[in-house]
């Protein structure tokens, strides 16, 4: 329901946040891609409503953090909270909004029985990696592996 507060607040994501998320992403990436965010918001609202959070400042959405509670993937049977995407309007950074959204997500994950929070990060993206470390996330024994399928195959010797 519409908020009337003028300060900041953290609340669960809803379908009317799509436009604000598209704008934040556009400010950060320079790319307008509403279809992607419509699909992702639809996904999280059906998958685990209440997990994903947005940050409001002055009644306007200025940050988002999307994720869900999962179990049974990659052989991880215990429920884990996964943080997939987040973004904060560049003008609103440094106000602890990311940490507050993270705390709200962690509370939701714990209520659902999670004992850990997981995410994947590009090590070269020091800004994001540093933010996640500051939240308390640390390297996991699980390792992300990948193989490029568009590269030239290695010649056998």
């Amino acid at each position: 329901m519409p908020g009337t507060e003028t300060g900041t607040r953290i609340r669960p994501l809803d379908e009317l946040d799509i436009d604000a998320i598209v704008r934040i992403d556009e400010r950060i990436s320079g790319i307008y891609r509403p279809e992607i965010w419509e699909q992702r918001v639809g996904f999280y609202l059906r998958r685990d409503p209440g997990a994903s959070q947005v940050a409001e400042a002055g009644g306007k959405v200025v940050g988002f953090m999307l994720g869900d509670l999962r179990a049974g993937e990659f052989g991880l049977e215990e429920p884990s909270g996964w943080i997939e995407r987040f973004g904060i309007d560049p003008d609103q950074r440094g106000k602890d909004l990311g940490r507050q959204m993270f705390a709200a997500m962690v509370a939701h994950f714990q209520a659902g029985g999670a004992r850990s929070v997981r995410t994947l990060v590009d090590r070269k993206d020091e800004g994001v990696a540093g933010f996640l470390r500051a939240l308390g996330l640390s390297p996991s024994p699980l390792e992300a592996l990948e193989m490029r399928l568009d590269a030239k195959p290695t010649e056998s010797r």
Partner: protein
Amino acid sequence: MKVEAISLEKKYHGAVEHWQRHNFKDYETLLDQWEKYFPTDERFCLCAKLELGTSDTIAIGEHQGEKKRLEPEQLSEEEAAHLLAIIKAQASTEFGSIQQHAGTLERADDDQDRFWVLRVMAEELRHGYQMLHLLLSKDWSHVSRGVTGEQMVEEILSMQTGNHVLDAFNLDYDSFIDNITFAAIVDRVGKYQLTMQRICAYRPMADSMPPMLREEAFHLAAGVIPMRRWAQRAAQGDPFITMTAIQHAINKWVPRALEMFGDERGGETNVKFGFKDLKNREAQDQYIEEVQKMIRDINLRFIRARFPAYAPEQADAALAELERARGTHHGVRREDLLRTPDRRFFRRKGEPAFSMVGVDGEPFTDAEEYLRYLSRHLNEGYVASRDMRNYAEALRGVAAGTLAVKDAIMKMPKLKRVGGTCPCSKGVRWVMDGSAADQAASA
């Protein structure tokens, strides 16, 4: 959140499944295709769900601070009768929306949209099941006027489009645009009702709300996201979807959605009894604000699609200018965008019932002129409906001074069952309240 899943007694569970086979034929298709459209999502469960660990203290009203009631008998007779009516109305809406969706579901031009609506339908079935659980798991006999739980279930499951409790559930869909618009507009009222009832002084009702609300979040997305995409297609010149068609559907559903809150002047009893935390007008005001935001965002989606080179600020400025000056912006007219109808537009219940006000708030004094106006602002299929004919007759009576507004509200004929109670039966027909057929139907 810890949730307890409960099944109804076998014969009632079977009755719901029987109803589903007649009214929701694509249910099995949904379950068969679940992994394709909702991979790794929890499988659908036809069961009642109760949230555990919620507050046991009444939050509002004349019993504020007392322990929430666990049995209908712990409520006063007036409170229990009032709550029983709320639960039955809620049940009616859940089953009613499935019947409406089923009529035009196959006309979806996109498989994802169709399966999203199918999931919405399945979850509405679960919500109806939840309300039946509330009716059957406790003894309401002291306020049910001799109607047993079994009879209440039979009454609810025998309702058809036309004789549901609320008007919004008595209108047929005219196209798949109605499926989507209904989810965005009418399910939004559902969200408000469920949110208000989270604090209900009757704890089984309060505990039913959080699982329903979590599912309702997706229902709104299943409406808003396709509408956003349609706006993009319309802006890019797709001949098969226009903003006018979407606007006409909005004009059809918003008035009925506003009436779902109840008369603007009411709602005090719900607050006094501790069943809801907002009065009708307060909730309606917030709802309108939300719809306005939804429509503004869709309009911005339209403008960005029409002018791909625009930065967000340019799109904002273009929309603001169109709303203010009502002129044109590089070929886009104000009329090409969506707008929220005035809260008095096309109303037949509540404070503005039978007032003649246009979408933008413009007043009319002549009934025939107003009806012609409505015919241009609603879709053709709906204009040609029985519902519109009945409305027109009542409006003419009010305008001519031969019918008081309160009588016009009561006069609207309804489709009622006059045959058997099995949903297979087609024994329904239009009857007037108090007519011989009506008396036969209620006998």
